[in-house]
């Protein structure tokens, strides 16, 4: 099956010209996959088994969601892309930065480092589950008051780790708060503020 040489059909100039005119489409593979027998071989050889999806019931913020997931999808991905809960961020996807921190069965963990299929039966709490209707969690209020977010990308994770600290220890010392949040990076360097916010939230709740 002769495959035309992609680059040869368009000169550089005509290629760029065609962008404005909307004629770009044929210069690269677009729609219309070439489905040959070879494709099936590629799938198993190079991209592995288990391409099908599995049904999983995820209990998130007290609500049960039924989704179909690939085994290689992480909890972070599924929360964000399938459940639309984008408050949990992915900063590194390597379990090194903490932006994806959620609370699973009472423990704060990196959701990028858990597979969605492992979450059957678990109780998952994300940033979206902290506020009760219009009433913010004291941690969220404290983060507003103490300027917890600069760019805000690590904020959900910092708050969830703060929540985990306070769930286990309602009156932590500053050292305990810092240690409890130590798995959450903040490149804006807003560490002083995040710790102050958690301590302030602790002092508000009796």
């Amino acid at each position: 099956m002769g495959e035309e040489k992609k680059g040869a059909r368009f000169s550089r100039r005509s290629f760029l010209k065609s962008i404005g005119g909307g004629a770009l489409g044929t210069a690269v593979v677009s729609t219309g996959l070439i489905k040959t027998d070879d494709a099936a071989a590629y799938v198993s050889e190079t991209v592995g088994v288990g391409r099908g999806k599995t049904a999983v019931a995820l209990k998130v913020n007290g609500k049960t969601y039924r989704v179909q997931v690939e085994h290689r999808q992480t909890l972070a991905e599924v929360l964000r892309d399938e459940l639309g809960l984008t408050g949990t961020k992915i900063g590194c996807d390597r379990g090194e930065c903490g932006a994806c921190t959620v609370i699973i069965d009472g423990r704060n963990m990196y959701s990028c480092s858990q597979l969605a299929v492992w979450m059957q039966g678990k109780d998952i709490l994300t940033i979206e589950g902290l506020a009760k209707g219009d009433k913010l969690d004291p941690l969220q209020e404290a983060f507003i008051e103490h300027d917890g977010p600069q760019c805000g990308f690590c904020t959900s994770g910092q708050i969830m780790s703060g929540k985990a600290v306070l769930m286990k220890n309602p009156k932590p010392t500053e050292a305990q708060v810092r240690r409890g949040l130590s798995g959450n990076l903040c490149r804006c360097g807003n560490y002083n503020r995040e710790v102050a916010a958690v301590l302030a939230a602790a002092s508000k709740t009796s």
Partner: protein
Amino acid sequence: MKSFENIDVKSVKEAVNLLQKFQQQKKTAAVVGGGSEYLQLMKDHVVEPDYLINLKTIPGLDYIKEERGAFRIGALTKLADIEMHPTIHEKLLILSSAAGEAASPQIRNAGTIAGNLCQRPFCWYFRSANFTCLRKGGQVCYTVTGDSRFHAILGAGPSYIVHPSDTAPALVALGAQIKIAGPAGEKTIPLEKFFLLPSVDYKRENILTAGEIVTEIIVPAPKSGSKGFYHKVRERLAWDHAIVAVATVVESSAGVVSNAHVVMGGVAPIPWRAAKAEEFLRGKKLDEASARQAGEIALEGAKPLKDNSYKVKIAQDLIQRGLLASV
């Protein structure tokens, strides 16, 4: 990650059988505990198993039991639980400290003791998809010509990784044993014998073969009057591996050492027992001079690479610090 199938198993036997079956079928399979480290290896394409056998669904492997002073810790016990366990904290402070030094709070909440012992090296060449190094089946250990600042000064060659575990040196210093289930049944061996030098096998870090799974760690009852400490020198204070770590367990009376265990992390491909230093200390009065000498003896024969000679002095000083804290 390459696509794979996750299989939740309900028992150790089921896991062992599956591993055997896949091996016979020439399919790649691996067990996973907490998952943080193994998923990362998969994301970095260091390992690409077709089947992931999830051990988390096995009931009854997550426990800390005290029996006649000895501790039995289930393989799936979380590092955070070991760190925070009141009795471990009271009686095995060295282990509680070591568990608490691992990675970050989130990892300690997910990571298991068995996973911590079985983890692969964090050598930046090993973990990079851009390098097919010796340990991954390639021709060359890139550390030799590359940046070796975090690599081994003892027991290394032809691979120069350091074992990244914090709990391993502490457990070896405590004289722990490790229970392994496999196709031939169960066996218990000293943890010290679990790890492999690269001169023996440079593609594996421990003696587990296909079909074998760690099920339990056993720590013998600490001798009365013994004191154990884990000291870790690191670049960042959170989520960082040891540049050098020292686990010391010293039994002494009136300042005289009856028995000492000195095990180093961050300096060798395995938790490194400073056997000669331990021998030297037996029967000696523990003071600054003898502690210093023990440190020097421990590092005799160290073979630094291009960038890591600084580890020698740090290790010597850390051993001195650890020993003196025990008096």
